[in-house]
């Protein structure tokens, strides 16, 4: 055996033996488990990030959000409209320094297509306290097909730095039984 600081004469390639061989086998097996886990969850699991997205102009997205708010508004909280989309339908939330707009009111167990986009910088969409996190980019309509499985009031916080007011950027999702 050579020092790792020494050059090596040719034909040094040898199959591993003993515990080294056993460990490589185990590690390889574990990598197979890791490799299969993600595709398995993609088809069988309920939580997946498929990245469904469309390009969108920020102004057009903002107009669509406004239309969505006007036709589905059910109330107001802290000056922000509460909007209840039809179960199974589309819902929109826009991120802008430093607010999320509007408040979404969803029904537990129903599935919604939530469209997320930003009018200015990149933002994070982090639902508390269940701690689900997604990225919001300006120019992209990020569609999450979400089924809330717990009821209550869920703050949304921004977890992507977006300027000095970043830590005051919050929104809300209300899930009713």
């Amino acid at each position: 055996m050579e020092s790792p600081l020494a050059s090596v004469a040719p034909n040094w390639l040898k199959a591993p033996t003993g515990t080294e061989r056993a460990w490589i086998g185990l590690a390889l097996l574990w990598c197979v488990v890791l490799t299969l886990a993600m595709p398995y969850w993609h088809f069988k699991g309920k939580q997946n990030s498929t990245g469904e997205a469309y390009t969108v102009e920020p102004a057009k997205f903002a107009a669509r959000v406004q239309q969505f708010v006007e036709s589905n508004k059910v109330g107001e909280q802290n000056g922000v409209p509460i909007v209840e989309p039809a179960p199974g339908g589309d819902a929109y939330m826009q991120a802008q320094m430093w607010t999320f707009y509007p408040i979404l009111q969803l029904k537990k167990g129903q599935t919604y297509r939530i469209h997320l986009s930003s009018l200015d910088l990149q933002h994070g969409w982090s639902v508390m306290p269940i701690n689900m996190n997604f990225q919001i980019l300006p120019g992209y309509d990020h569609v999450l097909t979400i089924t809330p499985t717990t009821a209550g009031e869920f703050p949304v916080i921004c977890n992507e730095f977006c300027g000095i007011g970043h830590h005051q950027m919050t929104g809300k999702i209300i899930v009713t039984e």
Partner: protein
Amino acid sequence: MAKQEKAADVIDNEGAHKGDQMHAAPGTFVLTLILLLSFAVYYFANWKALADVWQVR
């Protein structure tokens, strides 16, 4: 000072019998098994935590 001989030893032995004797590292093997076990526990605990959040596609 034995340095000269030992260094020469290393060079002379190159190619002579490298790799063909098994090395025994049972302690390291146990340590790596502990690593694999901790890895599996942490990894599957995280899948479990993920399964508890809202459904999303």
